[in-house]
């Protein structure tokens, strides 16, 4: 007996896959500088990173965010399931609304954070950084819900910047200006069904568009046609990382380690330690991690994620942070020079006792290379509000025609 092959798919080819927008992004990616995001290729830089950054802060930028993990949760117990999953009260989220939320394991350590869309009474969508089908399925034991991984089926674009509303209106999203922050609505763009939410990861006025994978290229084309007068530009991931830092957003497994992946369990972080206690609601009934979080709240956080404003202009990526120049009290997880604020900014994880001191004498150890010679800077840093850049236009409804 000889067994014949019965499968044809070549799993090892294109282990990293194109997104639904790939035909468009590849045509626009002049630099050919790509990066891998959750198993997909997306442009890191299309042309010039600075240019792309200012596009979002000044006009409107288009970002392919299709690699985001996207899950659909449907069923009679969808609300109960989401309420048990999230640390926030899912019952308060009404259809047509989106919420930023996070979820923990039994130890109260954060697994991931993301946006939760309530698409209907018994219909939710969850978008996040890490793969969560495993956790969602395990959490679903005993709940009458159906969980579907929509990651490959849905294309997603972030459409961000002051003129984003104007362009979308021109593209046919009638009434888009009435969308308040964290609203979501379905639109028909000349036959293409698009879900548009006023959400984003740039801290600016902006929207995210969700579309069936097959319709993705056409949507891209429509947006650029409609934007002819406003000159939207594709924006790569490098610029996004700077934009999100200015907005003070944290990223799983960059600024904190997911509890599911922490080899040393004590490296897991509670929502309090991420500075996100506002997302924890102890009054809403039971949720995973609640008992541990009550205890954690009683004990107080051991570490805190804080925003730092650092002297000089050298980004302090991965630098160690010292108290009084001697005692190591933490490290920096994301850092950059902010072109809009003209500040040297960073997110850092510090010992909570230090972070809570009034005006601690923090020094950041930065290594600077000048003509192949390294110099060590002990730059002063102070703890500041995490929203480095927080323009009014982000919140105003209807947005002005910038």
């Amino acid at each position, binding site marked *: 007996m000889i067994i*014949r092959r019965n499968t044809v798919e070549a799993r*090892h080819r294109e*282990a990293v896959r194109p997104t639904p927008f790939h035909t468009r992004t590849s045509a626009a990616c002049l630099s050919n500088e790509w990066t891998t995001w959750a198993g997909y290729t997306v442009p890191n830089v299309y042309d010039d990173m600075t240019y792309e950054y200012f596009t979002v802060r000044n006009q409107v930028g288009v970002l392919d965010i299709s690699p985001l993990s996207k899950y659909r949760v449907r069923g009679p117990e969808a609300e109960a399931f989401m309420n048990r999953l999230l640390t926030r009260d899912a019952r308060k989220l009404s259809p047509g609304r989106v919420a930023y939320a996070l979820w923990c394991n039994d130890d109260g350590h954060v697994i991931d954070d993301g946006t939760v869309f309530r698409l209907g009474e018994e219909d939710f969508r969850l978008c996040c950084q890490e793969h969560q089908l*495993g956790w969602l399925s395990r959490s679903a034991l005993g709940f009458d819900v159906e969980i579907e991984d929509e990651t490959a089926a849905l294309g997603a674009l972030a459409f961000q910047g002051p003129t984003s509303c104007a362009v979308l209106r021109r593209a046919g999203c009638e009434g888009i200006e009435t969308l308040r922050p964290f609203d979501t609505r379905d639109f028909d763009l000349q036959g293409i069904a698009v879900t548009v939410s006023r959400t984003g990861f740039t801290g600016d006025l902006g929207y995210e568009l969700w579309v069936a994978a097959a319709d993705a290229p056409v949507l891209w084309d429509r947006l650029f046609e409609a934007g002819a007068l406003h000159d939207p530009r594709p924006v790569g991931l490098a610029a996004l990382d700077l934009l999100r830092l200015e907005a003070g957003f944290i990223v799983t497994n960059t600024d904190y380690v997911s509890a599911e992946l922490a080899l040393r369990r004590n490296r897991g972080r509670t929502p309090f330690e991420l500075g996100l206690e506002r997302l924890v609601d102890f009054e809403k009934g039971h949720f995973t991690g609640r008992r541990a979080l009550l205890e954690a709240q009683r004990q107080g956080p051991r570490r805190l994620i804080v925003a730092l404003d650092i002297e000089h202009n050298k980004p302090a990526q991965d630098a160690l942070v010292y108290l009084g120049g001697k005692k190591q009290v933490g490290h920096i997880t994301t850092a950059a020079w902010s072109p809009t604020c003209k500040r040297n900014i960073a997110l850092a994880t510090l010992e909570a006792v230090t972070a809570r001191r009034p005006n601690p004498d923090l020094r950041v150890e930065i290594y600077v290379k000048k003509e192949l010679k390294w110099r060590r800077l002990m730059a002063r840093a102070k703890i500041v509000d995490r929203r480095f850049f927080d323009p009014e236009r982000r919140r105003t409804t209807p947005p002005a025609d910038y």
Partner: protein
Amino acid sequence: MTRDRYDAIVIGSGHNGLTNACYLARAGLSVLVVERNDYIGGAAVSRELQPGWTYTNCSYVCSLLRPEIIRDLELSKYGLQVIPYGGGATLMRSGDSFSAYTDHYAYRRELARHSAKDADAYERYSVDVMRQCRFIRPLLLRMPPDPTSFKPRDLGELLFLGKRFWDLGERDMCETLRFWTLSIADYLDQYFESDVVKAHLAGSGIIGTALGPYSPGTAYVLLHHYMGEVDGSAGSWGFSRGGMGAITRAMTRSLEASGGEVLTGSGVDRVLVEEGRAAGVVLANGNVHRARTVISGMDVKRTFLEAMEAQDLPGEFLDQVRRFKIRGSSGKLNIALDGLPEFPQIDSDSAVQYGEKHFTETMEDLERAYDDWKAGTWSRWPYVDMLIPSQFDPTVAPPGKHMMTAFIQYAPPTLKSGEPWDGPAREAFGKTVIDQIATFSPNFKDLIVHAEVRSPWDLEQEVGLTEGNIFQGELTFDQLLFNRPVPGYAQYRTPVPGLYLCGSSAHPGGGVMGAPGANAAREVLRDLRAPQTVREMGR
């Protein structure tokens, strides 16, 4: 030129014997290694049985070999090159397959093809297993404490163990207790739903042991195979260029560079005991070599039941040695090939063509294979771990030709039918395996130039492993840590002063790891108050 008196004589030129000898020689001791065969290597051996082809007859992959030992003994300087390889596939009777790619994204995709949940579960599984590896790994290059002793060093080691355990926290302490006592099948059931994924991963839980995947304790066996590393990448496998014999060749060179000697063709008839102390060895050819310290790389049964007189040992100790479970359960086929066999279930350009292949796709396949062993015969549909190292090692076969190595679980050391192994039974066993591989490879049989079939009996005859057990003793809890090989004698010393054990029968056990050899050398040097050349892990 041999002298008539040495500081230390090591019995057996396997990787543990040589590791031990190297450390002793580096401490300035005069060391002689005596080897029964005309060639060195023990079970880490490569020989040319067919002109142009290098047969790595016994052990076949290298990942457990401790990097500390490679570095301390400067093995790379003496010719050792460990080349990482990875991946593998389980070919299924339906024509489908499961490929474990080394590429993260390809592996995810393949897992998801079998079960979307399993793709996520794999990440959780990897983290959990790695947590266990982190706990166990520092214990490898340390002496296990005697829990009944009140000596400061034993108490210190117990405290070290206890503190490491306590530091895990409640959740991981409980997970560790479960991990050590669960079967690999139950362990994997906590993560995966796909049969083939589970069967693929379960292989590491049964290799070399006389247990099935449903037997409690096999989760630990999996860990034993995972705790290796290549270039700091935990759990990955490597190949030594030139076959596994290259490891013992490099060790021999390292030993000779430190002034040690190796004498081949010199089987030990018995260990010389004078006035209750080890005093040297008497070879089968009648020659006597004297030394104040004798270190045996042979397994515990062979050392005490065959190479020693019963009168020199306490009766209870001998009972314990007799009771030691050393069950042969593995066979091996080494096949010289005229070309590369095709496995059309996988793309010819897929990376997993370089990796290992298995043909058992459910836990039931594996457990039934074990049932056959329990019944005293070889598995009718065995677990095969098949590799073609010539695909990335150009030294082991002539250009265009290939060398296949197939490890087989299970085969018993003696057949219930009473048939001897060295006859038609061996041929029939080989045919079982060849037929299984040929089921998935249409051109395989036509390519066979020569096949060496090795039953556990053959392993015992050639390498001297009792019952052909590749680990010199089962890796069950009753024979691990302070229980290995015999409670009260787990610290490499034996009831006879001056006689030590350095083989896989001692802690931490089998695999081409070298840790028992290194740990034994540390204890010998301690007792001799000689300069210490073996560092303790975690210190």
